[in-house]
């Protein structure tokens, strides 16, 4: 039996439409051999967690550039815990000020990737951490 491919949900919560980063990452992870599901724009935390459950993903990548991360990310994390999905690795990318990074990690985010992060670093991070959790 071949090893199951890593399944990643790339999601854009909130009202922000800037999807360049989300789409580039989705494609890079796909090229790296992962199964990638992209939610499309303007998903509520509820919709994102629902999609994660249905798609049985190992990782959720949240892309936020609007400054709403301190409201939206904790909502996603709370819902994941409530549904017993806290094994899912959650990473965040976008415009995130340095001082918010520890706060996001405190609510359970595994890593935050600011603008300029190399795709290779994101891919490696997801691969290593999903494996550790498995």
């Amino acid at each position, binding site marked *: 039996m071949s090893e199951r491919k890593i399944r990643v949900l790339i999601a854009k919560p909130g009202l922000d439409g800037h999807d360049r980063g989300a789409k*580039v990452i989705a*494609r890079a992870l796909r090229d790296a051999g992962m199964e990638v599901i992209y939610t499309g724009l303007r998903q509520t935390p509820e919709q994102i967690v629902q999609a994660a459950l249905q798609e049985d993903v190992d990782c959720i990548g949240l892309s936020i550039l*609007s400054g709403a*991360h301190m409201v939206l990310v904790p909502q996603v994390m709370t819902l994941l815990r409530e549904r017993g999905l806290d094994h899912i690795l959650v990473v965040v990318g976008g415009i*995130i*000020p340095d001082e918010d990074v520890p706060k996001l990690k405190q609510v359970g985010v595994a890593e935050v990737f*600011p603008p300029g992060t*190399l795709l290779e670093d994101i891919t490696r991070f997801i691969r290593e951490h999903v494996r550790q959790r498995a």
Partner: protein
Amino acid sequence: MVTKEMKSHLDVELERWEEETLHPALRKRPERMPEFTTVSHHPVKRLYTPLDIADMDYERDIGFPGEYPFTRGVYPTMYRGRLWTMRQFAGFGTAFDTNRRFKYLLEQGQTGLSVAFDLPTLMGVDSDDPAAAGEVGKCGVAVSSLEDMEVLFDGIPLDQVTTSMTINAPASVIFAMYLVVAEKQGADWKKISGTIQNDILKEYIAQKEWIYPPHPSMRLVVDSIIFCAREVPRWHPISISGYHIREAGSTALQELAFTLRDGIEYVQATVDAGLDVDAFAPQLSFFFNSHNDFFEEIAKFRAARRVWAKVMRERFGAKDPRSWMCRFHTQTAGCSLTAQQPYNNVVRTAIQALAAVLGGTQSLHTNSLDEALALPTEQAAQLALRTQQIIAYESGVTNTIDPLAGSYFVEALTNEMEQGCWDYFEKIDAMGGMIAAIERGFPQREIQEASYRYQQAVERGEKIIVGVNKFVVEDEEEIPILYIDDSVAETQRERLRQLRARRDNAKVQRTLAALKEAARGTENTMPYILECVRAYATLGEICNALKDVFGTYQEPAF
């Protein structure tokens, strides 16, 4: 520009140079890379000579500033007569916060205002709507009603400033609010001047902040163009924007070609609605990005003017020379800024701003060094403005018009940009126009391809970003950041609660019903939107009324 005799002589000389001088040098030291390309992956040759522009005709292709085809600039004296407008985009928090920033910027010598709205406002959602959670006042100012707009421009006489408002899907509503504030100040609509972005096509292509489907959205745009031509003649009812297309990852050529093709779509739709082209074309304006690749950007700006002049004169038969002019605003490239070593962004922005000036822009926004991290602090915004002032007053580049004209490289690149535009226009025309192309996902796919290709080039180290994939430092010092706290949302909720209790709600309902009726028919929607605004209907209420008639839009899968 080159006679046949000169051309064959140069051909021989060029060959001789390669043989005698170049090749021995290359054998000793090969070039740094096998291939040199612009940031847009456009090939750049080792050397440009008169041979590269041998077919150009000075009078036909370059000409004189202020005259067709405007390659050298839209005005006869350019910056010798008047500098570009230094227009820094600003907006955050409540209307009170942004009003204070506007007054600060005007005191600092800024010459025009430019409003950034928050995401709920950009999406036609009120601050107290659950969908606005976490976003109120975050990346711009929250404006949910006429009352917010009154606060935003309090103490700023609208007949003495020019204001640009970056608003698209709900543009006609925000514009109506501005007009009513002007009315209340006693400012004559015939005298006020400014711009609403109002470019919905690039939302479907790149920025993705739409509300309604493309066709009714186009109708709202055309309604506002027609309304302005009649009632607010000095206003620019649309700023046809490449900025966001570029930020989404397009090449310089794609930015130029898709933007100008969007322009064609708007002109055609307005002509189809019965307006004479010369009655509105002089009020159209454009908005471009200025990215890192210096000469490519300058060539793009020069080509923009020449292509648009030809389009307007030849495709649309415009007779008024003002209709042929491509006037544009420029913003330096937000996507080129890095979170790593943020002070490097000051240098990037200065180079990009210089390209915009050498490209003949009419107004300019320079980004602040902290914008890969958050909205700019006051200090960062001041430094960004100072960058423009140093270019304007110290560098000397404003002393003569279009100083790079005649450069073999810049002229050749300008020609290549122009040709690239005609090729894209042909493809999009063959698909049935820009809306049809958008529905097929054509421009979206082209941009996605380009952005992925660029990112891969960065990963492989073929394209260098200083501080990101080369010259990296491990321990970075932190810089001060502007924080928007959540009291903004609370303030907005409370203000809206009071407004909804205070206003004449029966009148609100009547004006909304009248707007829906007009939207179902073919009348111009602007006068009806103005009535809703005067009755203090909120942005969300007005957009929802239109949504009831027009429906919403889902992006096609591709």
